[in-house]
């Protein structure tokens, strides 16, 4: 008995339509860069054609420039990395005056990530950027694990999320994407709160809070006690959170966490995601995100999947068959 699903006949890669919709924003394909892993887009523009991506989610911008956390900011851990960057960014004005024009020039679909310590700060950012040409959507960073104020723990309160989304909703017609922390008891609650407040989509998930200790010195391997864990180490965790969030809401969910390959991305789609973000993989390979796009296209072509909606959310936990172990696929 075959335990693989009966797929359609293979089709030509050109027949595969990878486009997806996030609110009113059409993306040519579902692969976005994760905030904080692609700078402001232009850093990689000489090696990556930004037009080959679904979109670029920029480094989170805050009202004022931020210098970020003291060193050490990076610690590699098994199959992953901890970061304690602390939202270093150029601030609203330089983002608008220097970074955005460059992104427009590169013809990228831009999703501006914004972060704040209060709903009012987020409102200021949306008001200042909402009328700018070249922004396709906003991602609201409700989930930075590395800042003392306005971080993941502050925002992971359903009522606060719902009220804040409600406030922001009134300020712009552009799609609003709420980026969620995985470090909550029940991600369905934060997901539903954002939906109720008027979010057009969710990103699930940001990094997981983690630690690494230099045993000989009995000190953190980071400048702070904790950091955010990313990379393939978190993929199974992120997949589970993404699946849970996608089942809890009607709005699209953007899967994120440890995606290195097209297969990884498609697993998120099967778990219910509409789009995906590639993050840490870019630090390993600058061209990771466009490679994920072509790997997704190849897989879909081989399996006769002409549109991602045919695969989306089709994951089933039901059949508890005893199956022979299959070789791991890269």
């Amino acid at each position, binding site marked *: 008995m075959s335990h693989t699903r009966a797929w359609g006949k293979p089709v030509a890669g050109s027949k595969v339509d990878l486009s997806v919709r996030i609110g009113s924003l059409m993306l040519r394909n579902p692969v976005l860069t994760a905030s904080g892993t692609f700078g402001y887009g232009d850093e990689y523009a000489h090696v990556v054609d930004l037009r080959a991506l679904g979109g670029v989610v920029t480094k989170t911008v805050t009202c004022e420039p931020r210098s970020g956390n003291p*060193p050490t*900011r990076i610690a590699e851990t098994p199959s992953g990395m901890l970061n304690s960057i602390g939202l270093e960014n150029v601030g609203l004005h330089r983002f608008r005056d220097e970074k955005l024009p460059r992104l427009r020039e590169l013809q990228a679909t831009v999703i501006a990530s914004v972060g704040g310590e209060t709903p009012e700060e987020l409102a200021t950012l949306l008001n200042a950027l909402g009328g700018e040409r070249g922004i396709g959507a906003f991602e609201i960073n409700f989930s930075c694990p590395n800042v003392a104020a306005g971080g993941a723990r502050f925002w992971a309160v359903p009522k606060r999320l719902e009220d804040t989304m409600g406030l922001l909703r009134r300020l712009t017609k552009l799609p609003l994407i709420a980026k969620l922390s995985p470090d909550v008891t029940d991600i369905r609650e934060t997901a539903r709160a954002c939906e109720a407040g008027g979010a057009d989509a969710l990103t699930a998930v940001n990094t997981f809070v983690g630690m690494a200790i230099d045993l000989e010195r009995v000190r953190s391997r980071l400048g702070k006690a904790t950091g955010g864990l990313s990379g*393939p180490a978190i993929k199974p965790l992120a997949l589970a959170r993404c699946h849970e969030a996608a089942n809890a809401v009607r709005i699209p969910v953007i899967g994120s966490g440890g995606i290195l390959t097209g297969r990884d991305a498609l697993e998120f789609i099967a778990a219910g995601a509409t789009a995906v973000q590639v993050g840490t993989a870019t*630090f*390993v390979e600058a061209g990771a995100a466009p490679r994920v796009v072509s790997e997704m296209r190849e897989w879909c072509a081989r399996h006769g999947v002409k549109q991602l909606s045919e695969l989306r959310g089709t994951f089933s936990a039901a059949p508890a068959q005893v199956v022979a172990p299959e070789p791991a696929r890269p």
Partner: protein
Amino acid sequence: MSVAAKQRLWKQVTATVVMQRDYARGFRWLELEVASDFHMPVAGQFVQLLLTPPSPVLLPRPMSIAGAVRKRARAGKPGPIELGFLYSPVGVGTRAIAALEAGASVEVTGPLGVGYPLEASGTPVLVAGGRGVAPLLMAADALAAQGRKCEFVFGAREKELLIGLGEARERIAKAGGRLHLATDDGSRGFKGNVVQLLDQLQAQWGSTPHVIHACGPHGMLGAIARFGLRHGVPAHLAMESVMACGTGVCRGCPLPRSQSARQAVLALGAEAASLKGNPEFAMCCTDGPVFEAHDLDWDLIE
């Protein structure tokens, strides 16, 4: 070329291991060949080495370049570039790199960062501490190629740790430079550290302008920076940091700026400022790894 354009000459390519051999005290010498379109690095720049899967580590390893030679042209096309690395396998990642044999493939991203301004006027004084000798071998090569004499100051705890001394000698001989050795235990050359030796040498320099290019432990570099500031000798120091991307994107390798550097960054024009965007921290990967003495706050660097 603008600063921004200069920094964006890096690319990620597949390189082939030409050879790798043991060096003294567990050090390794690795030679990689990259295609001709790889940008020719300057001394002090680095690359990110990424093992092809399956790799025991996720992130690439930043590695200082110890030599870069363009090979003979092939069929009228520019020849490939051979990159040399002198390193010590200290962790899981570098131990896996140490196991690479001739013919193996490895991914190389580079050249990255800002190297030594070897064109700076004055007699170049190359100061190496222990394994920090790697980029200075390349600097000595470049100076020899220009026919410029240099002073090469090489220090270590003991004579066995003067790794790469043979290579240093060869290069200095080519340019007719002078080699000065220092060991903490006096087993070779001057008894003491390189900064104490620099103090002695400086007394002989008189009014002839000198410029220091150094690499080694951060403590040593801090002492050289203070020496340079004290005596008005420009000093360029190659720093190290844990890194993720190596290209300025992840903001993962901050080094604290000095007060004067903070002011300078705040006063910069738009283009330079967007590269050196952070007044409090410089990024080791793109603002450095080579910094001037007055760029950094040495009291905060360990």
